[in-house]
């Protein structure tokens, strides 16, 4: 099989990828930056740098997923349009969904986990810094494997849920589905490791005095999210592995022949898939809790009920998966159970919404960018939640199932919840990551365009769904009465696209013109990350803080005033730091080689990758990695450069 593509769109993408790669290689070589890239980034185990790499990947993937969305909206703008053919349309909705959930939302969250959690709980790093690097590089190479599919052999085209029997070898003989299976498998291993890593970090590495009930709400939300990751992701691992066995080894788990049962895949997939949406939304709740408290200059209202509802949601998330296929035809009893369980999720969520509102009540509200996104989230998410309860009504779902009503619903909760949440977090913690603030004016333009665009894009889709338009149709005849609403929706999508571009422009403009953050506490924050200089030195805390209550940093400021940030020079002790390592990168590269080999059923290549993985594991196991000590002299130099001594 020749790998050189024949279709113009694929050829153009391939040429673009090659040109960009050559450009990157040339730039790095010209500025002699290869060594810098290897030492400072590829081998780093610093949670803040790993977080920034996750963030860059998430934004790139948001762009790619967004382009996919716009291509679909162009195709649907007019009836009988021939902009994309059916095959391309199938590939694009598949990659759009998969990328947005697994290669955009997940790394965006992990960026926030990494950058914020150790700083909030007063730790110098995560529990397992080396494993953290492994997680990132597994994600990175998984994403790379997924993204090259479009130009090398064909993208997956069976939807982001990848249901058999369509995704079985009989009906999808190309490499596309294998790309999907292996790239998700590889990045999924990384996600499980991240879940374990941050749960141990939160349980074991909090600063002295920070009991669980004094922990900032974002860290609580990460804890809840990690619990769900740990108990949900293995189901995805199993679903993907069994389907891979069907395709590569020739077993019959989900085939139509020899006793296979495709519904088993759907169960396994959604036993992961539904908790997955809570994995991505819970940290967004955490971000909103931090933002609403800081920008209302008040303690978070109802802290305990916030914690209880987070944990309730994380448990209940396992009891609702069947609502994704009420139409499978289970008994009325089964469907009723899952319908009621799904509706019940609205209760703890409602508790949270009221707590946010009461936090703002009589607060001194500042309408900075993080707070704007927070405010936009509440009505958007409330409405999305309400349509969710409609979908949870099992008999009605027979009408809504797989219609544009569903599409509008989950975009409303995922964009209105996760994307707004991550953008609020991005704006909120940006100065902490990079040492400068993002200019407000461009950001406000972006905010309004994105929000208005969102409603223009998705409100018509609710109507289209009720009018009978089903998801994943690549064209429709003109007599259906859908034309106008589809055109409006497409216009909305483009307005959102402009909003995204303005965010990029805002970032680029702010790199030169943004206000430098010299205090480390630009928002008058309440939690420990704001006690540190921006950007944070690689050892985080010179001295591990003593925590005396919730909103630890706020209390320190009340107690000590301007003295709160300074450290007596004599009290500085040597700090133990973990060593950098190239092994996480190399091992993940070996995973990539093995995955690529399996995609094309080249077992020799896959074996080479497998042996590479084994060698890296053994090298690590036999390594005596004791880290190194950072001398007080070096720490004094860094601290005094920040004006902290």
């Amino acid at each position: 099989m020749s790998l050189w593509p024949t279709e113009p769109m694929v050829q153009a993408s391939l040429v673009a990828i090659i040109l960009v790669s050559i450009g990157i290689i040339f730039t790095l070589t010209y500025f002699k930056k290869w060594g810098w890239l290897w030492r400072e980034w590829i081998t780093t185990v610093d949670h803040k740098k790993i977080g920034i790499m996750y963030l860059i990947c998430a934004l790139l993937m948001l762009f790619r997923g967004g382009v996919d969305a716009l291509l679909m909206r162009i195709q649907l703008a007019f009836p009988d349009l021939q902009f994309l053919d059916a095959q391309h349309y199938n590939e694009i909705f598949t990659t759009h969904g998969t990328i947005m959930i697994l290669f955009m939302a997940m790394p965006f969250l992990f960026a926030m986990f990494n950058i914020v959690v150790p700083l909030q709980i007063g730790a110098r790093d995560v529990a397992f810094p080396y494993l953290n690097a492994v997680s990132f590089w597994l994600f990175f190479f998984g994403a790379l494997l997924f993204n090259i599919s479009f130009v090398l052999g064909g993208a997956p085209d069976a939807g982001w849920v990848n249901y058999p029997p369509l995704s079985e070898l009989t009906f999808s003989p190309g490499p596309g589905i294998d790309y999907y299976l292996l790239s998700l498998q590889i990045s999924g291993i990384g996600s499980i490791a991240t879940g374990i890593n941050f749960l141990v970090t939160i349980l074991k590495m909090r600063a002295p005095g920070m009991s669980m009930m004094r922990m900032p709400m974002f860290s609580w939300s990460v804890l809840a999210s990690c619990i769900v990751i740990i108990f949900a992701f293995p189901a995805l691992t199993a679903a993907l592995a069994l389907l891979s066995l069907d395709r590569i080894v020739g077993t019959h788990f989900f085939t139509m022949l020899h006793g296979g049962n495709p519904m088993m895949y759907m169960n396994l997939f959604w036993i992961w898939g539904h908790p997955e949406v809570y994995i991505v939304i819970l940290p967004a709740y955490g971000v909103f809790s931090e933002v609403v408290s800081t920008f209302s200059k008040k303690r978070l209202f109802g802290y305990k009920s916030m914690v209880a509802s987070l944990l309730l949601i994380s448990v209940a998330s396992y009891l609702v998966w069947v609502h994704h296929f009420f139409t499978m035809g289970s008994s009325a009893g089964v469907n009723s159970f899952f319908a009621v369980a799904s509706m019940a999720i609205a209760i703890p969520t409602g508790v949270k919404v009221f707590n946010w509102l009461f936090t703002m009540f009589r607060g001194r509200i500042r309408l900075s960018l993080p707070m704007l996104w927070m405010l936009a989230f509440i009505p958007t998410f409330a409405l999305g939640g309400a349509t969710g309860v409609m979908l949870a009504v099992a008999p009605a779902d027979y009408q809504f199932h797989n219609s544009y009503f569903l599409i509008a619903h989950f975009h409303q909760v995922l964009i209105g919840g996760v994307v707004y949440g991550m953008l609020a977090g991005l704006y909120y913690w940006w100065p902490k990551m990079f040492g400068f603030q993002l200019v407000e004016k461009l950001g406000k333009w972006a905010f309004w365009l994105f929000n208005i665009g969102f409603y223009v894009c998705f409100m018509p889709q609710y109507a289209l769904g009720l009018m009978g338009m089903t998801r994943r149709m690549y064209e429709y005849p003109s007599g259906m009465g859908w034309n106008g609403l589809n055109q409006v929706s497409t216009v909305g999508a483009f307005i959102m696209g402009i909003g995204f571009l303005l965010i990029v422009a805002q970032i680029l403009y702010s790199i030169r013109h943004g206000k430098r953050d010299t205090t480390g506490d630009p928002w008058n924050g309440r939690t420990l990350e704001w006690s540190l200089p921006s950007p944070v030195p690689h050892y985080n805390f010179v001295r591990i803080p003593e925590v005396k209550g919730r909103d630890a940093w706020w209390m320190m400021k009340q107690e000590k005033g301007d003295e709160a940030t300074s450290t007596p020079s004599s009290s500085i002790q040597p700090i133990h730091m973990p060593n950098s390592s190239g092994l996480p990168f190399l091992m993940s590269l070996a995973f990539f080689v093995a995955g690529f080999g399996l995609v094309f059923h080249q077992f020799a290549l896959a074996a080479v990758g497998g042996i590479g993985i084994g060698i890296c594991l053994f090298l690590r196991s036999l390594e005596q990695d004791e880290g190194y000590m950072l001398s007080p002299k070096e720490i004094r130099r860094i601290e005094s450069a920040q004006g902290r001594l």
Partner: protein
Amino acid sequence: MALAQHEVVRAQTEANRPLEYDEDGQRHILGFWLFLATDLVLFACLFATYQVLVTHTDGGPVLSELFELGGVTAETILLLTSSFTGGLAIYEMRRGNLRGLIGWLVFTVMLGLAFIGIEVYEFVTFVGEGATMQRSAALSAFFTLVGTHGLHVSFGILWMISVIVQLLRFGIQPVTARKAFIAGLYWHFLDVVWVFVFSAVYLMGVLG
């Protein structure tokens, strides 16, 4: 830095906790328990799939007719014993006895190898009788469930060999003690999973 026998015992007595439970060790051990939780969910999914598909034989070989309880009982005895000897290894480690620790680990590895040997023989026999993974959904589920456990055991053997190499090089110290202890946890976990495989697959298969 290897510690002599009396130093291990003294260090443990002074800190009032085993060597592997220093601050770093506690983190690793908790992390590994969480990993075991994920592995448990993975096995739970495979068990569920097996239960759903076990009757889907498509007119091919029926599992209950294939099973030979003799070999499986031998496997069970070997693995349960190996869990015991793995425990003895950790017991010797706590006493600071490096030779005892390595000796029992080697013994555990041998029992593991014997277990894998019988399992491979069983699989080869099944395939010889036409009961391949590709024949029916029930067989796909059987080979995948039992095979995944077998792969775990094989990985555990390689892992323990790596731990033995490190113990020979560095002796008993907090890091190697932690590694030996965690490898032991993994081994006990596989033993527990096997108890479920033995009851849910083989015993229920023969009785059912």
